[in-house]
């Protein structure tokens, strides 16, 4: 067995004992019980597994765990702070931007990543950014609206 890796996830450090090429998604879900990140395709094509690595949205099914050890990781479980939802989570909740909601955590993580680099995206920029996230239930218009509302909320609250 290789020497244990250490991951920093949602501000906590986790020693991880698994092969270096294990995709991060499996480590999060199966080893650490952080099941909010979802398996949708295992091929980086659907976005359900999206997490932030060093603040950037990444498909955790495509990242070997060894490559994720260097930077802080944020998953859907790490967005809520002291019982307060992240503005993106709150906006999804307010807009009812889900049906089966299996894509929701990936959508939220991608959107959080978008708003960090582009705090006031146009509708076209949101659509473009979320192109790699699949919602099979067809909730796209509400998701776009939720991201716009989240941007508004964050600007109003100076976040």
């Amino acid at each position, binding site marked *: 067995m290789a020497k244990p890796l250490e991951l920093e996830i949602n501000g906590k450090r986790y020693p991880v004992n698994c092969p270096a090429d294990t995709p991060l998604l499996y480590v999060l879900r199966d080893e650490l019980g952080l099941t*909010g990140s979802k398996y949708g395709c295992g091929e980086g094509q659907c976005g359900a597994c999206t997490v932030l690595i060093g603040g950037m949205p990444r498909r955790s099914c495509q990242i070997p765990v060894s490559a994720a050890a260097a930077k802080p990781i944020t998953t859907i479980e790490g967005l809520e702070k002291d019982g307060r939802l992240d503005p993106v989570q709150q906006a999804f909740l307010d807009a009812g931007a889900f049906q089966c909601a299996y894509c929701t955590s990936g959508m939220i993580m991608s959107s959080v990543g978008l708003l960090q680099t582009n705090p006031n995206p146009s509708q076209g920029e949101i659509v473009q950014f979320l192109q790699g996230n699949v919602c099979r239930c067809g909730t796209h218009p509400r998701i776009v609206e939720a991201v716009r509302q989240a941007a508004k909320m964050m600007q109003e609250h100076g976040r």
Partner: protein
Amino acid sequence: MSNVEGKLFIEPERYEFGAAPFHQFELARRDFFKILGAGIAVFAIAKDALARQETAPGHRSFHNEELPKDINAWLHVGEDGSITGFTGKAEIGQNIRTALAQTIADELRVPFESVRMVTADTALTPFDAGTFGSRTTPTIAPQLRRVAAAARDLLVGVAAKEWNVAPAGLVAADAKVTDPASGRSLKYAELARGKTLAQNLPAEDPITPATQWTIAGKAIPKVEARAFVTGKHQYTTDLQPAGLLYGRVLRPPSFGATLTSCDDSVAKAMTGVVVVRDGEFVGVAAPSAHEAQKALDAIHAQWKEVPQTSSKEIFSYLRQNAAAKSEDRFRKQKGSVEEGLASAAHRLDATYTVAYIAHVPLEPRAAVAQWADGKLTVWTGTQRPFANRDELAEVFHLPESSVRVIVPDTGSAYGGKHTSDAALEAARLARAAGRPVKVAWTREEEFTWAYFRPAGVIEVKGGVASDGTLNAWDFHNYHSGMSGIETPYDVANQRTEYHQVPLILRSGSYRGLAATANHFARETQMDALANAAKMDPLEFRMKNLSNARMRAVLEAAAKSFGWPRKKTQEGQGFGIACGDEKGSYVATCAEIAVDKTSRAVRVVRLVEAFECGAIVNPDGLRNQVVGAMIQGLGGALFEAVEFENGRIKNPHFASYRVPRFRDVPEIEAILLDRKDIPSAGAGETPIMAVAPAIGNAIFDATGVRLNNLPMVPNGLRSA
């Protein structure tokens, strides 16, 4: 009704149940003796299952040993005033957990927040055939309303007895019973305390009409929504009971391939790995997904494959292999089609085709199975928990009472999760491992080993008189199915036939079933006939349509869309289509744009009017209607399963295109609320008219008729 191996099935299009289970497991000796000892149980399962199929779910009660102490099988008023509704239906994203709780709260006169739904658990909820056919709202909601009304009467009765007054004068509201004469009141919680109330469901109990609903009919947000935006909700794939092993199943290289040899010695030698070989079933279970994959890769199997029809030749195959026997056909006839066609001023013959498509639920099929003391518990994302239970019981030679199937709220299904595959696989591996096992299908497995919406060929002949009267209609569907096959238009001479064809790919239910195919053919043909008669497509439809509900959705959609519209730019086109199915009505208008140089087609705007009687939750309904429109775009424009010699050639998101953000046009959904009409289901019908509306708009823009679904598979560039 079809009769497959002595079992009756409600829906004629659920082909998947015609097939034998994928696996038949050997009977272990100890199980055999167990069954001998309780032999009657085996018959009881069969008799019981049959009896249930013949009995409306509303009149079915629990097994005695499972009977909880509630007023009946579907509703419980707790001593703390909490209300629990029970239904065998599953929450798969269609929002029934919220809508059914609204219904109960409304009728029982309690706050919405006090109602909790227990769904799709074979040990706790009453039998249910499955969550399909848009049946939850029209069948389960009224039943819950009736039991809620009965519970309310019961509570009033208890209060009346307590106060020694006549129940007629008492009022139930705000979770309490009040006596207006004396001003006394007792909360439901107080009335329920220390009692074991029981009452049978009255046959006819007056229930609140939709015009007087106070909680139903409102846009109440999805219950437990916070758990979904925080990642806390646990889908089947997220469950991790202690000691869990991860299972993988060895798949044949092609459909119908049989195992000729299998060397699993390397896999068996791996630490912590359990290998199961049982007939054609080969599977592994290991402490991690990674180790399970390694073990699976280490198995060397040889298969005997069989040559099979490919997607390239599927349509000629279907046309040539239609059943000759009349009992394999659905047939409806009126007047003389031949005379009608002969006398028509305009006659058009056309052939339409529909490709196989996949459901692509974002949560793939999955199950967690756990055995304890000879009893099996399976958590699985299925639309048919009781059918899963029965199949597990049959395959593992267990009495039905030893199997419990629980459905966590599931990552969508769209008609694609009727079967028990993952449940059987997980249970087989778990039995061998002596530990719980999770089997979660990969995306490739999901695309390959699930089942598909069947392909079809539809031949239509239509004739129109010189005044625009539709006077002949001849409609033949080969293989794709019977849903929505009958024309809603008034036509004196008509013949409608469904021709069964033996299965090529494993096929089954899909949102709307064949109604999408049949509406595509019918509404495209109607458009072509209008064009031949030089009439406006809406005017032509209205002239031949007397159904007031259909006319109303057409009018509503046309009004919002601005029909008839003048073209303002080159490449612009407008189309309209309508339909009815499963008690609800839909009309869709589409605007498309064709790029002058690239010839790419872009859907610019969709306006859809939908009417399903009294609306239970307008917010949830809007979500479903818009969702169906977007899902409909995929099958209309580019979704198609490609296959050759029993292999799926595009089993990935990269090669099987589903609608994404950029594909979504401006969308408007108009919901017509008919409080005078009982609520119908809404999961399926809103998908049906999208494809023909778009196709008709493409014709309007280009003069090109696209009669094959998908219409523009090559990145919207072929029109």
